[in-house]
């Protein structure tokens, strides 16, 4: 089960762990193909060139495997898709809920994944 975006996809929890442990900086957008999620995927695609030191991925929210993000303590108060999570050296350093602007995302990338 993968999303129909042009990003790299994470399908399983094992793959999620592999990605965050094999890359220093990772941003994952966990969502559906809905109106709050698509703009975030779109911004991530735009930023891939500008932030070559960050690995950008998506993950389908409805996959049982996405429990690794859905159940993260940092996402416990979230009630809006997508759940977007940022990892530095395998550690979750920031999480956001619902649609975000490019300015909000770049601000997090610059602050947390520099």
């Amino acid at each position: 089960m993968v999303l129909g975006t042009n990003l790299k996809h994470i399908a399983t929890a094992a793959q999620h762990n592999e990605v965050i442990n094999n890359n220093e900086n990772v941003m994952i957008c966990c969502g559906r193909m809905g109106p709050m999620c698509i703009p975030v995927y779109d911004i991530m695609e735009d930023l891939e060139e500008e932030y070559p030191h960050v690995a950008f991925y998506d993950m389908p929210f409805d996959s049982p495997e996405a429990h690794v993000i859905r159940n993260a303590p940092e996402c416990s108060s979230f009630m809006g898709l997508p759940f977007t999570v940022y990892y530095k050296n395998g550690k979750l350093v920031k999480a956001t809920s619902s649609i975000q602007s490019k300015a909000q995302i770049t601000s997090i990338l610059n602050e947390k994944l520099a």
Partner: protein
Amino acid sequence: MNYDIIIIGAGPSGLTAGIYAARAKAKVLIVNEGSVGGQMVLTHQIENYPGVESISGYQLSKIMRKQAKTFGCDIKTGVELTKISLEGDVKSIEIDSKETFTAKSIIIASGGRSRSLNVKGENEFKGRGISYCATCDGDFYQNMEIIVVGGGNSALEEAVSLTKYASKVTIIHQFDHFQGYQHAIDEAKANPKINFLLESKIVEFLGTEKVEKVKVENLKTGEINEMSIAGVFIFIGYVPQTERFKGIIELNQWGEIIVDENLQTNQKGVFAAGDARVTRTRQITTAVADGTVAALRAVDFINQK
């Protein structure tokens, strides 16, 4: 940097304008504050775009963007337009308070967006109890009490759809009547999980980690009461994204850009296309047609100079 034509907006009208203008050998810049594709990307499946049996709005926007780039358009997305000058022979825009671009002609294809309440706490609790999409976020509210704000078809229909999850849905609307179709009103009124709070509006969202309460003003009496609530869904309509052009180009009372039959605004060399202009029909096909007309007239305009 100088261009022949700058296009503001990268929805179907803006991208089509870019394709046509660039194919006519104009040097084109497309700038966009939101997502490429505009409202089109939010359409799950498009089945009435001639020549394409079925495609997602997301994929169609990707194809249009690729076409525009292939024909030579420069595209800058996710930018903030910090200054715009549309008068005189040389038009200019400034983005992100740092880069300025000039052009002989401008096409405004800035589209529209969902209206927000603009009250205290709305930005803070977005995704933490405030949502603009029932199908996206409805299932977070299983057996909880929620509010739907609005009185049009979207609000009424989404309120009914949210009763699949929520234990109770309160529709808050500022008027004493609804703007939706009668069948949508009847369906909402017949639903035992839905109740109504008319002539009222939310004035503040309260909570710590997420929304816990809202302050609701009774518009008849001015009285403000607090309501405990798990979530609020906002469906209060769609507005053209033209605020920044107010006082520069002529808009009607709804903020739509007034154009002539060539899609030219009251400023010479400034054209408008798609959902931002006065029109009764807002479809991808009409946006694409507008983009075509605006681009060809803009090319005529710069060639006459």
